[in-house]
């Protein structure tokens, strides 16, 4: 009897937590279909006009393009530095490994406002403010840890005898890494890259400081919209972001599944 009660309590709490977590998303998506200019939930009808509004508005299109550009360069930079760092940190006994790891991870916990202000000041003499590249470099500081962490996790579960098997059967050690290790840990790298992109796409404070308001990525455009005039285009744009994030998580899950060792038949 007790066991039954436990199950009920557990089930009820899971549902409650899920509702709590999903509530804002449900509200935003619901509000985006509102036929009137009011940002209200539940919507008073069903209309796609706010999505059409976004599709027809060059400002919004531009914001999406800026987000994509920054995100793409961020991802590239995160991979460029994160992959070798991930390999070095999990494969070799590097001096000061703990310190390096802590420094890398500090980017994840440092307050964004601090990173924003310091990046801005640092960029002034370099002329990197108001450039896409400048923002991408700043975002890659937050992207590299995701690549390092995910690649590290993949490498820890990678069986090093696979590399030995490749080498003893004629592969130069470098070639063994390229033909065996890389493909096997690739899902970890992909997941890290997706996370790096996502953290760039949703980052607001550093974007405001570095890009100002001339070129606006989505996050900044949303922020501006909230300050100027609240209407369901914001909800529609947010819903698109949620959709993109969902897509990314799905990809990440697929990549992870590809990495998981399948049970023997």
């Amino acid at each position, binding site marked *: 009897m007790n066991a039954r009660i436990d199950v009920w309590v557990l089930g009820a709490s899971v549902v409650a937590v899920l509702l709590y977590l999903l509530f804002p998303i449900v509200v935003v998506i619901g509000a985006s279909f509102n036929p009137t200019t009011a940002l209200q939930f539940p919507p008073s009808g069903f209309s796609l006009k706010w999505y059409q509004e976004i599709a027809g508005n060059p400002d919004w299109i531009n914001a999406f393009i800026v987000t994509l550009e920054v995100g793409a360069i961020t991802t590239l930079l995160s991979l460029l530095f994160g992959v070798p760092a991930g390999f070095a940190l999990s494969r070799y006994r590097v001096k000061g490994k703990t310190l390096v790891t802590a420094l890398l991870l500090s980017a994840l916990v440092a307050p964004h406002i601090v990173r924003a202000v310091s990046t801005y000041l640092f960029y002034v003499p370099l002329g990197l403010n108001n450039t896409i590249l400048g923002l991408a470099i700043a975002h890659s500081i937050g992207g590299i840890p995701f690549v390092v962490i995910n690649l590290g996790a993949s490498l820890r579960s990678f069986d090093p005898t696979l590399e*030995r098997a490749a080498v003893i059967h004629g592969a130069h050690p470098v070639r063994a890494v390229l033909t065996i290790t890389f493909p096997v840990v690739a899902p970890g790298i992909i997941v890290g890259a997706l996370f790096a992109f996502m953290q760039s796409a949703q980052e607001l404070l550093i974007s405001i400081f570095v890009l100002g308001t001339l070129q606006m990525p989505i996050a900044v455009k949303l922020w501006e919209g909230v300050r100027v005039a609240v209407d369901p285009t914001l909800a529609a744009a947010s819903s698109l972001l949620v959709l993109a994030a969902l897509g990314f998580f799905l990809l990440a899950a697929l990549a992870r599944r590809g990495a998981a060792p399948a049970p*023997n038949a």
Partner: protein
Amino acid sequence: MHNVDPADLKTAAGAGVRLVGVSKAFRGTLAIDDISLNIEPGSFVSLLGPSGSGKTTTLNMIAGFVTPDAGQLLFDDKPITDIPPHKRNIGMVFQSYALFPHMTVFDNVAYPLRMRTKLRKDELGERVREALQLVRLSGFEDRYPRQLSGGQQQRVSMARALVGRPRLLLMDEPLGALDKKLRDELQVEIKEIHRKLGSTFIYVTHDQTEALTMSDAVVVMRNAQVAQFGSPREVYEEPENTFVASFLGNANLLPAKVVAADGQGQTVRLSNGAALTLPSGGRRTFIAGSDVMLLLRPEDLALAAPGTADSATLNGTLHEMLFFGDSYKLIVDIGSDTLMLWASPREIADLSVGAPVRVAWDAGRAGLLPAGE
């Protein structure tokens, strides 16, 4: 640097492997302690020993994954210590199979050919199919390793190791993860493959039956050293020390003292006072007064009919009898020592625990070993 010419792979004659005074320490602990071995070209040699005795380290050193701290490693009398593993032209089978999970069976088996040769596509396909046929896995080319059973994966792993026709094949407990029935089956197949190919096989195992049944020679390892190196019959029938005697098969080892040694043979006295005489010839001889261990294999012992008066019998008490279906395992107390032997259910008749028994022993097959070790 010397590189083995891929052309002479095709001859597939086995490589001779020689270790001369090789040592290796990990963080101050010796994993291999001054080992010398001469492995004949084309032979099947097992490295047998308990876990941690240095078998894998020895194998990895031959593969080139471990660099010796001292000593020399020679293939066909050519030093190979400075040649990196990928240029040694060796095939290797791992206990964990180590198949490449992102490649099909075909690509796994083709891997060594792609790394080492510039074969045309059709030749490559031919060689891969040949190797899969050798391990009886034709038709599995397009499967992925995760779609195969453990036994099939190990066959793929063998095909991959053999496809390049290496003159030396290393196997590290290849059957260790498989169940008994499959193990017995694959033992026979590996033996057949060895006969067909003529390459030198070095096989690591901690299973003494496996080592005895498959090998031309057995290297018994203990504590980073070679306890004995010889043919299966030699290490079983003429162990050089009590470790080898008890590691291979069942052994009754009784402390004894040599009371007389002459041209006729050696007479030893057991702790219960019984004197036994071993005929001279072949065996190790000790001077009178030496402390020794008397080795009596269970299969050289038998229950003696009550009443027979024979110098080749030992009197004792039946301590325990265990039914094994086709036979009984008997534990007999001889003074403060115990003997283990087998008896058929017919011989047991009305015997019961506690009864006095007489055990006949075969003097010609008993052995004397140095006491203490």
